[in-house]
């Protein structure tokens, strides 16, 4: 992996994403509106720590929305602007370029968490508690890693198809629900929970929530983190295998460009 390629791709991606009005809407307006919506829903729920579901929930929904419509949507944008073929045929590794795009997007998309926090404080003056800041930082890093790797798998699959827009719309809400961004996964039916347990962001969200409430059992935190890292490693291997396969497949199926 060439670091100059990774760095320059991240820089280009952040510049390009921020220049798009739709991305700015997802990044700024979405978390504000989601925070208002979730606060109104949770106001009478008896929950006292609004950070756990309102701020984190709105921020994570915004984060995932940005990732979906940027990391995934970018494949389509590159395809329609004729640059997907150019980056694919460049000597730099294609997976490295896609990774740079995803990291750039994910980093800029983290702003949604801050915007959600500021909205909650500014509009509702609600007491927000973060009981274990160290564990929160750790969980946040783990969440970034989980989102980057899962986005990499998705972006890879989307390179194979020209129906990118359809798929990226299809994955946004289900991930919000399955990974428990705004409610605990335990409220879902058993069979659906099994699906949630196969998704690394589910653990990332739980780790974030644990650290907001306060980590009383560090062993449980580390165990969950271990499961999440294991799943992430599995995704990374899957992603590497997929990229090797798509390198041939896209050239056979001719999906790099618009017909």
């Amino acid at each position, binding site marked *: 992996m060439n670091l100059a390629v990774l760095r320059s791709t991240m820089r280009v991606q952040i510049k390009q994403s921020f220049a798009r009005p739709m991305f700015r809407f997802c990044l700024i307006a979405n978390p504000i509106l989601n925070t208002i919506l979730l606060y109104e829903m949770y106001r009478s729920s008896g929950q006292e720590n609004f950070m756990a579901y309102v701020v984190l929930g709105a921020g994570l929904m915004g984060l995932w929305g940005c990732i979906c419509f940027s990391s995934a949507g970018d494949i389509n944008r590159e395809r329609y602007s004729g640059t997907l*073929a150019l980056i694919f045929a460049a000597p730099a590794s294609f997976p490295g370029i896609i990774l740079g795009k995803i990291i750039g997007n994910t980093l800029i998309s983290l702003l949604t968490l801050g915007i959600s926090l500021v909205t909650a404080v500014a509009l509702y003056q609600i007491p927000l508690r973060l009981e274990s800041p160290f564990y929160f930082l750790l969980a946040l890093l783990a969440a970034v890693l989980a989102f980057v790797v899962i986005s990499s798998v998705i972006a890879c699959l989307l390179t194979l198809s020209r129906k990118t827009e359809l798929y990226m719309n299809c994955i946004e809400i289900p991930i919000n629900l399955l990974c428990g961004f705004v409610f605990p996964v335990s409220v879902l039916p058993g069979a659906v929970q099994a699906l949630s347990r196969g998704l690394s962001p589910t653990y990332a969200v739980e780790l974030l929530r644990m650290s907001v409430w306060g980590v009383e059992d560090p062993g449980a935190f580390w165990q969950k983190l271990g499961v999440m890292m294991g799943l992430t490693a599995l995704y990374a291997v899957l992603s590497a295998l997929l990229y090797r396969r798509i390198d041939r497949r896209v*050239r056979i199926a001719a999906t790099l460009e618009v017909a």
Partner: protein
Amino acid sequence: MEAVIEVKDLKRTYITRRGFLKKEKRMVQAVDGISFSVQRGEIFGLLGQNGAGKTTTIKMLTTLLAPTAGSCKVLGCETFGQERQIRTRINFIFGGEMGVYRRLSARDNLRYFSNLYLIPRREQDERIERILKLVDLADRADDLAETYSKGMIQRLQIARGLINDPEILFMDEPTVGLDPVGARMLRDIIHRLKEQGKTVLLTTHNLAEVEELCDRLIIINKGKVVAGGTPAEIKGGAQSLEDAYVKLIEGVSA
């Protein structure tokens, strides 16, 4: 002379599926067994009607598309399977307004592609400046590409295609949308590339351009080669290359 492009009995079929419940499979034979070779330092033309298979051929040569059958070698390596050995040494320009990042400036576009072509940082500034001057974009180098005219975007594409100093440059209808001054500039660049010993393979519908630039050419129709040789050989007894071309195409299509 060394052959840097060798194509033998090359075929490419596109398969599309239509329908929701009952999928209907449709096959289109875009390239149907063409053969040709290009020598180092040559300017080689690929002519044909729209849909004749020119772009598909260029895509296979530039490692973007897998051949269905036959052999497609560039610089001695198969374009499908040995693409890594080829990609640093070639580049390509597709006509039209695609292929640049419109929300970046020309300079940022070129810097980014310099990185993707693994050009050392210390060489980038000098190279980018030189190429911007060559394509006459130095004055607007820091403006966003989305503010450029069609011709300027085309020139930025040309600049991008030259960024890695390629041994072989593939150009698919590079003068489409260019004004006469821009088209002349491109022809001058191609002449200069030839003087430097570079190889250029280009497709175009402008037959005057072919006569001025190409050492040799082939004409393809419906995926097959219908004629090949120097512009003078193809012209034969006809009054112009255009007359000879029309006669050949009509003769095959009749």
